[in-house]
Structure formats: C-alpha cells, structure tokens
C-alpha cells in the first residue's frame, strides 16, 4: 500500500486545463522529484494535494484514506507537511514560535489551559519547546531561536521553514523549490539537510526543483511535467537522456 496515491487527478482553472490525468505513488522513505519548465503546473499539483485547491476529478489517498475535500489543516494533521516556494513565514513571530506553532493540532490542553495557564499547559508547552530546540539544533539555527524571522538571512529563513514543517511530524514532506535563490554553499547545506532529514525521520519526500543537479542527486524517481501532463517518468539517468525532456527544457531546434 502506497503512503500517498494519486489517481487520474485533473484540474481546471475555468476553461484552462492546468493538470491532466496526474498519477503518483509514494512509498515511505522514498524521495521523489517533480521537474518541469515554469508554468508547467508543479505548484498547482502541490496545492491540489495539500487541499488549497479541490481537484476537478481524481482520487487522492493518504495512508489509505481519501483526503479530497478535507481542509488544508486536516490534510496537514493527517501527516502531510510542506514548505512554500515563496517562503511563507510569519513576519512578527520568532523562530522558536514558528517551530512550536506547527504542533497546533497535537496540543491537548485546550482553551481552559490557554486562558488560565494550567500546569498541564506548562508541561505541554515545555515539551513542545524542547522538541523545537532539538529540531532547530538539527538545522543548525538553535542560536537564532529568539530572533524575529524577518531579521534573518535568506538561507536561515529557508531552514526555519524546513524546521517548521518537520515539527508537525509529517509522514511525507513536500518541498517546493527548497533551494530557490540560494548560493552554492547554502545549496550544499540544504541538500545535506534533506538527506539527513530523510534518514533521521524515515519520511517520504516529494520535491519540486528547478536545479536539475539537485534533483538528479537526491531523487530515486523523477517525473517531468509539461503543460500539466507528465511526459516522462523514471530514474535520474533515464530522465536525463530522455529526448522529450531535453526538448521541453531546451527547445526543439537545439535538439535537432
């Protein structure tokens, strides 16, 4: 049984067909990649799976149960963590608060605890904080815990987003261009972190990326998306040598 299975997912924006007959199976611990030129519909696929849009057609199951029609927060609580292409951090909150926030659905002290500061709340918040520090340590940004995120350099912000997504203990992690705008050194660190995360938590990773080098090194299987349709799927070597992929990326004339 696949961890995440998507069958024949199709989506229309009005009359525009953004995604057509998309299929995917991800097993626990797998790293999968999704590449494609700008506007191919990669982020749309992420948004469809995470519940931000509802697919027009198709079935999505996570751990055996259907998730189409659920709220994004319900899908997230079911074990689907993600990062965003355009770094959606909360600008007035500190790094530590970000990582703690992703534990929202696991909090059990309830409103009574929130209003009156019960001992149960203090225990639980302390636990969450300890976990958060552990994660921040793993990302190498524990010393920034009390900083407001807007003051951080870009690479650190990316790491905060990663720590935040991991804090919710996902079964599968969606990374939307995790290295966009990074310099080579930061890129190397991020690849290291992704590997480390996969090994430490044993979670599946689904990656959208522009930098082919990174996808080729990290992913076991890669899909190539063009105009909402998967034109090629296979191991990195197969993809690299697939004429359709080269054509989509570089144009027909050059190939000929």
């Amino acid at each position, binding site marked *: 049984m696949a961890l995440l299975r998507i069958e024949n997912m199709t989506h229309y924006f009005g009359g525009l067909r953004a995604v057509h007959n998309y299929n995917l199976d991800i097993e626990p611990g797998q790293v999968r990649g999704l590449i494609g030129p700008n506007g191919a519909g990669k982020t749309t696929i992420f948004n469809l799976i*995470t519940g*931000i849009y509802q697919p027009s057609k198709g079935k999505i199951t996570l751990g055996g149960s259907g998730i189409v029609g659920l*709220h*994004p*927060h319900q899908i*997230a*609580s079911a074990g689907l*963590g*993600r990062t*965003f292409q355009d770094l*959606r*951090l*909360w*600008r*007035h*909150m500190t790094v530590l*608060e970000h990582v*703690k*926030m*992703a*534990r*929202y*659905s*696991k*909090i059990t*002290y309830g*409103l009574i*605890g*929130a*209003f*009156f*500061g019960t001992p149960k*709340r203090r225990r639980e*918040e302390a636990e*969450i904080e300890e976990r958060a520090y552990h994660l921040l340590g793993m990302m190498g940004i524990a010393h920034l815990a009390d900083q407001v995120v807007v003051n951080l350099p870009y690479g650190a912000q990316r790491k905060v987003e990663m720590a*935040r*997504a991991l804090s*919710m203990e996902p079964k599968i992690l969606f990374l939307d261009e995790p290295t966009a705008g990074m310099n080579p050194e930061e890129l190397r660190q991020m690849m290291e972190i992704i590997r480390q995360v996969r090994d430490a938590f044993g979670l599946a990773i689904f990656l959208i990326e522009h930098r082919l080098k990174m996808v080729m090194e990290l992913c076991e299987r890669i899909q190539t998306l063009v105009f909402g349709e998967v034109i090629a799927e296979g191991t990195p070597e197969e993809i690299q040598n697939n004429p359709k992929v080269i054509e989509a990326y570089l144009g027909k004339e050059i190939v000929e």
Partner: protein
Amino acid sequence: MEVKNANLTKNSKLRGFFSQIPLLAWIIGGLIAVWLEHLAGDRLTDILMLPKIPVLFGFVTMLKKPLLIPSSVIYVLLIYLLPVFIFARLTRSPLNKLAAALFKVPWLSAVIHIVLFYAILHIWADISAYRVLTLRLTLVAVILTLSLNLINGYMGEFSCSHPGFMALGAYMASVLSLVLFVSDRHFGEAVLPAISGPFLFHLVLIGGGIAAALGALVIAVPSFRTRGDYLAIISLAFMFIVKSMIENMEFLRGPRGLSGQPDYATLPVVFTWTVLCVWTINNFVRSTLGKALNAVRDDEMAADAMTVNTRQTKMVAFMFGAFWAGVAGGLFAHVLRYVNPGTFSIQKLAEVLAMVYFGGLNSVYGSIVGAVSLSLLGEALRPLEIFKWIIIPLLLILVMIYRPTGLIAFKEFNVRNLIRPKQEPE
C-alpha cells in the same frame, strides 16, 4: 560627537541607576506616596495656597488657574515624585532580597504585587469621589481596549462592533441585576434578597459577557468564511443594529435607557475583573493556541498548512474578545448606574479604537498604556473644553506618524520578568 557620547554615558548611567530597582520598591514607594497624601495632603495644600488637593496630579488646577502652576508642580513633586524615587533608590538592596525571596513562589509574588498595587489605587482614590469614578472608568476602558486589541491587533481583523458587544453586555447585566436584586416600577419586585447581590453580581457580569459572545457568533459565522474587509463592514452594521434594536425595545425603555442599577461595581470589583481580564488574555496570547492568531494574521495559508485550524482560531478569539467587551459593558453600566443606547455608538467606537492604536497593536502593555493615558488625558484636559478635541487627535496623529503601530506594539507582557528581582552591578 563628544557631547553625544557624554549624553550617552549619562543616559546609560541613569538607566543603570533605575534598572537596579525592583518593581516591589516602586510599588511600596507609591504606597508611601499616597499614604503621605492621605496624611499631609490637606496641610500641604494650605501651605501652597491651593484650593484643594489636586485631583489628577494637578493638571486640572494648572489648566484652570495658570497662576497656581508652581504650587501644583511643587505639590506633585513633594507628594508623589520625591518620596517614590527616594524610597525606591534607598531601599533597593533590601527590597531586591525580599523580591528574590518572594520570587521562589512566582504566583504568590505576583498576587502580593497586585494586592499592594490595589492598595495604592484604593488610598489614592479615597481622597475624592471623582477619583474613584475616574479610576473605575479607566479600568473599564482597559478591559475594553485589551479585548479589542485581541481582535484588531493579535488577530489582525478590523472589527467595529465593540460598542455593540458592550451594549449587549451592559443591557444584559443591567436587566439581570434590576430583575434579581432591585424592586422598581419597571421590572417589579426583586427576586432575590439584596444581600446576595454583591456575590451574584459576578455571575450577572458573566451573563453579560456571554450575551456579547453570542452576538459575536452571529457576526463570526458569515464573516470568517473569507478574509478581507467583510468583517469591518458586517461588524459596523452590527453595532448600528444593536443600537437601534435597543432603542426600539419598549421593555428596555427604549432611548430613555435603564437606570437604578445597584452600586455593585465598586473599585475592588472593577479592579478584580480588570486583573482577571489582563491575566486570561495575556495567558491566551502567550500560549501556542493563542499565537495561532498571529500566524493566521501574518499568513493564513501557511498557518493552515501547519495544521492550524484557522477558522476555529478566529472564532474563539473573536468570541473571547466579545465576552470581555460584554463584561466591560456590564461594569460600565453599574459604575454609571445608568445606560442608554446612545452611549454605544460611533463615538464610543472611535474612543476604543484610538486607545488600541495609540497604545500599540499586539501588546498587552500597549493596551493598558493606551487606555490609561487616553482616559486620564481626557479627564485632565477637560478644562480646555473644545480644545481637548484638538489636542487629543493631534497627539494621535503624531503617534501614527512616528510609531505607526502604536506606542508599545508587539511586546510581550511577561509578569515573571516584571516581578523578578533586579541585578545589582558590582
């Protein structure tokens, strides 16, 4: 450059001078000051040839009779400033030790600080009935401002319905206490003996709060489906609907209003409720459940993707804010012992909004400072009559220019840090 440096060292020296003083010393100093006023205030006013003890730190006297400015300043200096500073400075090391001892049980220390602080207010207000009234209305304003800050600041939605919630709370509480504890022509004989009133009054206030929270539910259901200006428009409409609804209800005596509420909202009662409000709201906004409000405000999509139930978070906060507005309304009605629907209109809204934005968004400190300073300023500038309405808005504009989010915005109110003993440098 050198001058600047000299200023800088002087500044840090001054700061160092004060930073070693624990809050306990300031509070006890304040207690001594108000006690001094109690004992020697009358004699000092005779000597300084002031007509009577200046009620609000001499502002009113100074504005009415400019010739008395020197005496008023001397009075404030001798009674308040000098005793407080001298005491706080002299006793800082024993009181630091005492604060450290108390701090071993933080909640007990907090309670002691609050009780002592209440004693200051009580003795200060004992001088005149005017002070008691001003103080009670100021505390009500603190509750109101803080509860609106929860919605407009922490949650970042613009709500205009606070006067409406306040009206619901005020009328609910008034009707309850008039029916239960008072025999009058309108509502008939009292149901319960008057002696139970002061105790059951707390339940009456909670009833007012719940009425307001239910009103909030009516707004929240349609307007939290999406983000945007919907809430501002719907809540503004709600405010007017509540007002004209009450105006047209004959059993609430319509626009003539209700009067004769029992005098249960005494200073200790209002103070207790204010502390309760600050305590619960501060607890809420510092918990991860409450911080979810900030997450929703800063990026709702990200909050959703991080398992935050955004709709529930917003509903809870909105109703919680409305609850406290209702309680504030109930207290307000029982402080003035009269309510009419005209009170709860656009002017009240402007007042509360001004306090929130003046004090600072997303900040418990800010709300307290905003509510207290604007309430007291409103009273102190009363002799200027019409000019008061020029000076206060001007001040607001200046704050908005130089600190767009308010005086003390985005600052956590950490009671532990406040009551902590202060370090003494070697």
